[in-house]
């Protein structure tokens, strides 16, 4: 693939909400392009429009005005079904609150996207793919646990395994570490960085600088507009940072 050609290109995107008789523009004329294999962090204050923007990039929502070109194709006139197929074939989502299906196992959650490919993947092929994905996030020993039997960090790893099962071009992660402690956050970010190193484009929403430092590019939003857009020359390695954190020491009566 021509890496210089943008995989995502948005032109003058507006998103206006109508509620209770008033209109409110959450996005006000955004222009942005993202190249393949970038790792981009979207930052900004609460309510600045980060999630709204990312949902649009993920084809979960449509702009009120403007153009969104994904992979060279204008998505604006596409039907809902076409957008669903774009999500299925090219995107993976990681949410702050994991969004795993309740009372199902890790395996079933990760397998779910494959089921929407009709008869493309047979039972044993699905089995292999799910096991590989769970191994990649280090959860091969929790395959048949129900999701409510897993810790927050483990649940988020299941969600990541689910997001990568279709071998997506882009992973969208909206505050993936928002519900996790620092240690676990760095573990999760190490996995995401690993995916980016293997060629997956990552769009990450966060308001923590520590987390954004792992990205290669930082875009800051304010009131629905881009305030700044900078390349991070020296992105930190989450795996390295994780090692630097002091190990938790059990408090004892002696000390």
């Amino acid at each position: 693939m021509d890496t210089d050609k943008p995989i995502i290109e948005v032109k003058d995107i507006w998103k206006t909400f109508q509620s209770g008789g008033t209109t409110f523009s959450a996005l006000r004329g955004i222009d942005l392009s993202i190249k393949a294999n970038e790792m981009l962090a979207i930052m900004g204050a609460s309510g600045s429009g980060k999630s709204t923007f990312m949902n649009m990039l993920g084809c979960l929502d449509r702009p009120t005005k403007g153009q969104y070109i994904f992979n060279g194709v204008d998505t604006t006139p596409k039907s809902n079904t076409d957008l669903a197929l774009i999500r299925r074939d090219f995107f993976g989502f990681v949410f702050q609150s994991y969004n795993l299906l309740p009372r199902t196992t890790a395996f079933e959650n990760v397998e779910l996207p494959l089921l929407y490919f009709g008869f493309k993947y047979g039972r044993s092929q699905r089995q292999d793919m799910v096991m590989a994905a769970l191994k990649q996030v280090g959860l091969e020993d929790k395959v048949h646990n129900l999701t409510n039997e897993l810790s927050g960090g483990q649940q988020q790893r299941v969600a990541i395994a689910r997001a990568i099962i279709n071998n997506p071009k882009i992973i969208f992660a909206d505050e993936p570490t928002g519900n996790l402690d620092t240690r676990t956050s760095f573990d999760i970010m190490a996995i995401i960085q690993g995916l980016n190193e293997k060629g997956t484009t990552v769009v990450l929403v966060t308001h923590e600088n520590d987390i954004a430092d792992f990205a290669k590019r930082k875009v800051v939003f304010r009131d629905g507009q881009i305030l700044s857009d900078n390349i991070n020359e020296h992105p930190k390695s989450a795996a390295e940072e994780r090692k630097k954190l002091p190990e938790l020491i059990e408090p004892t009566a002696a000390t």
Partner: protein
Amino acid sequence: MNIINLFITAFRALRKNGLRTFLTMLGIIIGVAAVIIMQAIGKGSEEDITARINSLGSNMIIIAPNPKIVNGVRMGQGGQTLQYKDVLMIKRYSSATKYISPLVGVSRQIKYGANNWSTRISGVLPEYFSIREISAVEGSLFTDEDLRKINKVCMIGKTVRTNLFPDGSNPVGKTIRVGAIPFKIIGVLNEKGQSGVGTDQDDVILAPYTSVQDRMVQSIYVNVIFASAADAQSIKKAVSEIKYCIRTSHHLSPSDQDDFTVNTLSDIMATIQGVSKILTILLASVAGISLLVGGIGIMNIMFVSVTERTREIGTRLAIGATSSDVMLQLLIEALVISLVAGVIGIFSGLLITDLITYFAGWRTSVTASSIIISFAVCTVIGIFFGWYPARKAANLSPIEALRYE
């Protein structure tokens, strides 16, 4: 999602809310069981009635008098139009009629010793035995000779026997008084039980036609004429021949109406079946209402389920489900509910039907068609009542569904 996974997913979703799903199914279960049970009872009683009517004698034809109508005016009363000469006419000219016998009857007080019983004595020809499939369990039947000699002999049915001979002694050879006239009992008739219309067919005394006609009735008219066709196929032909013979014998002009009616067992059966059909329709509408209520229950629970799982639906949409995937998933869930309920309903219906037969002794008969219809109705209910909630889920926008609290 392919169809196999859709069904697996639906089963899993429903199992998670096992109790709730079962309660939702109850309406359909009851409705389907009711359909099966009602149909089985209806069909069973119809068969029962048919069997009883057949006990009257197969291929039987009954000719009854109608009031004579001349120029639109009713002549005579009680419909005394049939005579012995009509019988002779039919005997001579109707080839499709195998047996024929007139019947004259009078009610009399019957006495034997100190025992009294009031019943009818009927005068018939020996051919009557063939028409009604009558035989003697004790003694013998009377013969043409008895008829010719106008013998005062008779045969009695079981009810008459138990009332006149309560001690169980053998009635054959004993002489009873029919009114004032002594008759000698020469035989006891085989048991016939209740007729299709509920009369006791064993409360009878049969005697030679001539004996009753000459000694008691003293009228040229007969009450009714019984005939039988050679076989089931010739019944129609026999009926039309009989009509022609009697009209000729009665000198009716083509413009005159029949002064008699000819009934066959199939006519009588059709009447009774008509009644039981009305009953079936009535019961079916009760079952229908129960199924309707069950269907609304499914719709209700599907709405609850869609609302509860809004976020799940959002997640599914995010990972690539199309709205038709979502629609199909919920439609199949509704279908699975109604079909599983249908299967449970069918089995409970069969079980209850068996219990009814076992404990109440009613004749029941389950037909394949009622099971097939139950399945078809459940499919329709599932799709019909699942449609709207499924549509609602399919129309959710991914982002609204994901943000749903």
